[in-house]
């Protein structure tokens, strides 16, 4: 059974600082996704990572994948308040089924 662990589960950071969210998973998978969720809203797709060494960047967010270590990271550069949200990683199990991590609540303080 595929298990996905995220850490930290809660992250409070100052504007302008850098930080990294980690996502570990237990079995081999072809795809890993990062989603963002704002309070009371649905999930917004951020990145999909398909292969070992894949790196995707959008604005202040950069995601990477190490399939050998079964580890993905979401790096936040020079955080701004608008990045406050909950971030989920999700790993594809068989048949397109996604197994989600518990989510990381990010709060960026001015």
């Amino acid at each position, binding site marked *: 059974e595929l298990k996905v662990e995220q850490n930290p589960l809660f992250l409070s950071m100052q504007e302008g600082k850098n930080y990294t969210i980690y996502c570990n998973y237990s079995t081999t998978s072809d*795809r890993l996704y990062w989603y963002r969720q704002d309070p009371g809203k649905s999930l917004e797709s951020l990145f999909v990572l398909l292969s070992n060494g894949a790196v995707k960047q959008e604005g202040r967010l950069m995601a990477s994948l190490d399939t050998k270590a079964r580890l993905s990271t979401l790096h936040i550069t020079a955080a701004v308040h608008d990045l406050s949200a909950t971030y989920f990683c999700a790993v594809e199990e068989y048949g*397109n089924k996604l*197994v989600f991590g518990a989510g990381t609540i990010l709060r960026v303080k001015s």
Partner: protein
Amino acid sequence: GAGVSQSPSNKVTEKGKDVELRCDPISGHTALYWYRQSLGQGLEFLIYFQGNSAPDKSGLPSDRFSAERTGGSVSTLTIQRTQQEDSAVYLCASSLVGTHTDTQYFGPGTRLTVL
């Protein structure tokens, strides 16, 4: 439509009643998924439809839960004899299987409260 739509957005029901939740996927998407999000359990897969294949029901928590997808488009998730532990946000997603990324796009969800 532009995105996945779900109705109702909120549903309050009494324990023991049946409820139906609806999902309209993105036009042309071949796959449709139901997930549940609750405080205690996080985001859990429920069921997956792909084309004319038999659905993957492996995530349904009990036989009180069932889902249909008519005409390869709209889906209805039915919960019979609701219990308080069924209270959660039910999220629907769709994707175009066979593309490079198969990204699942989520709807706004239905918040179900069982009193």
